[in-house]
């Protein structure tokens, strides 16, 4: 940690994952393989040069092997391009340039490579000739190979304990590479509450603050900092006193939280005896342990896109998917797991170099993408049906806006089941198929969807965004994102009624389910299953065990007659003040300090 004598600086942002983290800032670049700029001490320069030399050697060996393989398979001609790559790795000029940057700027080898390669790539960006300009990708390829070789298979080992990561924008792929034990906080200049990375941060319990204006101007790598996810604040260069204060707050919220957690084994039931099912939303297979730890009744939402993003092959092989789903299903026992089929936009899959879509929220994504990429979808469905042989699996289709989509998905499932029959592979053909209700159209045709689906899963994040036409990540309109807006309540009510009429269950898996005030409103509206980040479960259980369903229903009935979000919020907050202030509000306000 760097000594500093500068005055503390407080930067405001949006707290998207609660908690307090105290550590050292590491700057993470958002593009390409993630490259950290790390200062090294003068005596570490020689060691860094050795790392560099080893990386060159190893990359050359890899390429030579690959080339030999290619030559054998395709003949000399096609292996030629690897020759060019090999020559780059033997390029004395390149090695000298990188070495010189490590020496003069005292930075890590990854960063030096990036600087040199970017310089060359910048020349290429200006080339008029299309063909030649595209050849810049050869250079990028070599740079990536060197950097990944340097970082090894365990890039996150690079991070020292108690690291606060600072980025332009938190990307889900970044989160996967990080070691959650080393990272105590995340800060970003852009981004918002609903970004996938924020969701993962909450899932992993890493405090995060985004939307910090001036972040890059104020911070420097190696700076000591405090991330306060409750208050939405980043404090740079805190004094010893300030650190001590925040450590005390950390300990206090830890104590409060432990008290709640002790009750995880108790049943989740309202005071007047209505059982509520609480499930876990998880994104990383490694989070399976959290199910048991926080007393979740199975998994209500497994987001498969992270499995895809973190895979070494794209898409992940059927076997990798099968093994992951099976492990999940076995861990969930009788409570089972709901697997959401691939929910991403094409732009995400193509990573950085894709053409930016003008309106990605309304573009080719989720079930639309899966139905247009049937091979990718088929492999996922095969893996799901095979895993279902070993445990209870439900499958849910994201962003459904028409009955046709569920029909086509069912047809594909049947075709896949026939395939597996013919191949004599163990599988379970008949699994529940649900639809996500997250597009206004789905709410309006909820009756028709309920006739064909086995269950509904209310994705409130997207539903609110589409219903109110508000992008919560746009700070100018973020205040218009109101989960208790009368239109949202109305949509939930209509969905619940359609499901009840068709005798199928509804589960809510959006952020609303994890927020006590909103969750109580949902229960009052007739929802009996909530799925949320595992860490939110103990507190939610505590809240539910202290309320009467009859009182919730009564308050919600009155709220449904109100016409503004503000009035609904005020009414429900007042009605349930005793329940909320004592438990949930105490927890938060204490952590925020007085």
């Amino acid at each position, binding site marked *: 940690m760097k000594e500093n004598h500068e005055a503390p600086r407080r930067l405001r942002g949006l707290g998207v994952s609660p908690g307090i983290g105290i550590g050292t800032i590491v700057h993470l670049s958002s593009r390409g393989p993630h490259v950290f700029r790390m200062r090294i001490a003068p005596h570490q320069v020689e060691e860094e040069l050795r790392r560099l030399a080893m990386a060159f050697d190893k990359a050359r060996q890899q390429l030579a092997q690959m080339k030999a393989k290619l030559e054998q398979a395709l003949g000399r001609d096609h292996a030629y391009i690897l020759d060019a790559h090999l*020559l780059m790795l033997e390029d004395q*000029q390149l090695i000298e340039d990188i070495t010189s940057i490590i020496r003069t700027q005292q930075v890590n080898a990854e960063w030096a490579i990036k600087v040199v390669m970017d310089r*060359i790539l910048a020349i290429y960006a200006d080339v008029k000739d299309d063909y030649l300009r595209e*050849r810049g990708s*050869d250079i990028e390829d070599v740079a990536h190979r060197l950097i990944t070789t340097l970082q090894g298979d365990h890039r996150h080992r690079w991070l020292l304990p108690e690291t606060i990561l600072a980025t332009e924008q938190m990307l889900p792929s970044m989160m996967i590479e990080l070691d959650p034990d080393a990272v105590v906080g995340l800060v970003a200049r852009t981004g918002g509450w609903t970004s996938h990375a924020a969701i993962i941060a909450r899932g992993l319990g890493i405090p995060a603050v985004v939307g910090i204006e001036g972040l890059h101007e104020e911070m420097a790598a190696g700076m000591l900092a405090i991330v306060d996810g409750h208050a939405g604040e980043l404090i740079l260069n805190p004094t010893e006193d300030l650190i001590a204060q925040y450590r005390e707050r950390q300990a206090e919220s830890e104590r409060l939280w432990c008290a709640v957690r002790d009750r995880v084994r108790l049943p989740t039931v309202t005071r007047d005896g209505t059982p509520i099912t609480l499930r876990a939303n998880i994104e990383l297979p490694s989070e399976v342990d959290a199910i048991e730890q926080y007393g979740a009744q199975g998994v209500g939402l497994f987001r498969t896109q992270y499995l895809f993003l973190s895979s070494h092959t794209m898409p992940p092989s059927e076997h990798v998917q099968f093994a992951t789903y099976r492990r999940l299903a076995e861990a969930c026992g009788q409570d089972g797991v709901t697997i959401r089929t691939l929910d991403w936009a094409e732009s995400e899959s193509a990573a950085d170099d894709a053409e930016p879509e003008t309106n990605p929220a309304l573009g080719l994504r989720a079930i639309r993408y899966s139905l247009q990429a049937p091979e990718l979808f088929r492999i996922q469905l095969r893996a799901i049906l095979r895993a279902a042989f070993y445990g209870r699996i439900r499958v849910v289709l994201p962003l459904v806006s028409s009955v046709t989509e569920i029909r086509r998905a069912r047809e594909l499932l049947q075709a896949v089941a026939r395939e597996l029959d013919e191949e004599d592979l163990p599988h379970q053909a008949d699994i529940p198929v649900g639809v996500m209700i997250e597009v206004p159209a789905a709410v309006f045709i909820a009756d028709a969807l309920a006739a064909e689906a086995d269950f509904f899963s209310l994705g409130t994040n997207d539903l609110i965004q589409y219903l109110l036409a508000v992008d919560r990540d746009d700070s100018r309109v973020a205040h218009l994102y109101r989960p208790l807006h009368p239109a949202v309540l109305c949509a939930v009510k209509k969905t619940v009624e359609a499901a009840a009429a068709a005798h199928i269950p509804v589960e809510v898996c959006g952020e609303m389910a994890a927020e006590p005030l909103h969750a109580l409103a949902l229960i009052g509206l007739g929802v009996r299953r909530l799925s949320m980040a595992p860490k939110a479960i103990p507190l939610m259980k505590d809240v539910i065990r202290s309320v009467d369903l009859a009182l919730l229903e009564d308050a919600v009935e009155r709220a449904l007659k109100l016409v503004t979000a503000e009035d609904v919020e005020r009414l429900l907050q007042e009605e349930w003040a005793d329940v909320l202030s004592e438990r949930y509000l105490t927890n938060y306000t204490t952590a925020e300090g007085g």
Partner: protein
Amino acid sequence: MQRRTLLVKNRLGLHARAAAKIVRLSNQFKSELILQRCDNGRRGDAKSILSILALAATQGTALVLTASGEDEDLAIRQVIHLIEHQLEEDDEREREP
């Protein structure tokens, strides 16, 4: 020291594959071999593939090749012959599916 001007004639310019050929040939000589663009003066070592790539020389780019060393005569003749006459065939192969 030998100096000659040459023209990049092949359709695809000095792309990776062409640059690799130049580097391989150049490295057979003891002389220092420097390529320089006539239009913007950017220079590159003919023994360094990245330097050549950084020239970003497309079809029609005029270059000056300078060779200095004991085998400079042979070096300059062979390298120029390669760039002006032998790269085109590679292009044809490169375009194959």
